[in-house]
């Protein structure tokens, strides 16, 4: 009886471990998708109402959630409170302080970082082009994330279960 409960617990915990690891891939995909929504809102603010970046980021922050809420609010705060005196630095600091616990990969952050260098620096037509380019690049990342999710999610889940099973076989 006790043996049964013990082995069940082992199986459950390793399976959960597998699910935990695999969920990272799912979260990354979600974060990328949400970034795209937020940036679409930012584009609207910029292109259709030429709202200056500090206000635009604030508005986007209000409507976004989780990490992107924090991210855009930080950008806005950095600029309006003059914590930084250039867009690039304000953006960079927001990435460093808000995205370290996210599931985004370094290449995702790098893409976002490069976007911060051109955001707000040119006229509306030009900004539109940059947004368009960014969406295309982000789509690539999204596809990669999806691919990885598909491949790895199942693998880690199965591995978690199998690990538990293996421990059991060794122990018993």
């Amino acid at each position: 009886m006790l043996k049964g409960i013990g082995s069940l617990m082992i199986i459950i915990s390793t399976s959960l471990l597998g699910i935990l690891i695999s969920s990272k891939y799912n979260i990354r995909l979600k974060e990328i998708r949400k970034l795209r929504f937020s940036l679409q809102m930012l584009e609207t603010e910029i292109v259709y109402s030429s709202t200056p970046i500090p206000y635009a980021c604030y508005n986007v922050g209000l409507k976004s959630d989780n990490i992107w809420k924090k991210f855009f609010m930080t950008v806005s705060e950095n600029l309006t409170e003059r914590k930084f005196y250039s867009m690039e630095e304000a953006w960079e600091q927001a990435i460093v302080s808000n995205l370290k616990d996210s599931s985004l990969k370094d290449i995702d952050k790098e893409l976002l970082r490069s976007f911060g260098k051109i955001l707000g620096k040119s006229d509306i037509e030009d900004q539109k082009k940059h947004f368009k380019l960014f969406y295309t690049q982000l789509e690539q990342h999204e596809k990669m994330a999806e691919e990885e999710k598909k491949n790895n999610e199942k693998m880690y889940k199965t591995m978690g279960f199998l690990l538990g099973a293996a421990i059991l076989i060794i122990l018993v």
Partner: protein
Amino acid sequence: MDYKKPLDEIFDFLPPNIKRLLKNNIHLYSISAEEIRLRLNKPLIIIGSDSDYFVDSNGCFIHEIENAYLTTKEDIKNATEIIQNFSAYSFGEELKNGYITIPGGHRIGISGRTIVENGYIKSIKDIAFINYRIAKEIIGAADKAIDYIITPTSSIYNTLIISPPQCGKTTLLRDIVRQLSNGIKSKNIKGFKIGLVDERSEIAACFFGEPRNDVGIRTDVLDACPKSQGIFLLIRSMSPDIIATDEIGKAEDADALMEGANAGVKVIATMHGSDIEDLYKKIELKKLHSNYFERIIVLGRSEGVGTIEKIYDKEGKLLFKYLGQEV
């Protein structure tokens, strides 16, 4: 007269190094600073009401160039980003004119390399020269002028204020508007409804629609609107007794002002120039030459900024000349 406006709003738009030098710097107030000038790799210069100063690295105001703080490339870069509010796209139109108005009505002028398209300035890039012009709201600046504007029947004359830059045109206009709008009890003048077309956001210094400067209780402000269109709009929509506007000079402005006169509205306007001849020389304002303006006030700096040098009537006859005596 009292200097009401603090300089705090300007500090928010200075690059960090220069802000550090000037913020809470008592000298800035004691010389009653008018301009802060940044030029790439040249000394930072503060222009006071009677002299200009360099600033050393401790924030002291000095006359010797040796220890003067030099404006760095970084300062200019930061200042450029800040004054555009980090958003080049939302300031296209204002960059074309070479200046940006910030909260408080201060104007930041910029100069650099222009981008020209079809013979018109499209934008300015490689900004290397920046001029922070400090707007001063001086309550009571119009005390003297107002007596010449009022007609015996308690109406007002169409008035033009002519002055070179930096002599207090806008300040005078703002205070005239404030006093006429509130009404002056001691002189038995009732308040007028005033439509203020504030194309450069300098007179009322609106921030999200609300005037930051005191322009009176019966004043409607049309902010950031081209003068000629704004005058038509206000006449139709707000039924003003008086239209006030800054810096006329285009042919459309003249058309709009004529239209105003036909509608029975009085006009108070300002113009760049040094004397009444400059009005007659302006071809664009030809329609306004003959007797349109019934009072012409010329400003100068004989006794500091905002000295009223001369006042003419509509025939060009002197009513007042500085020296203290009336003609």
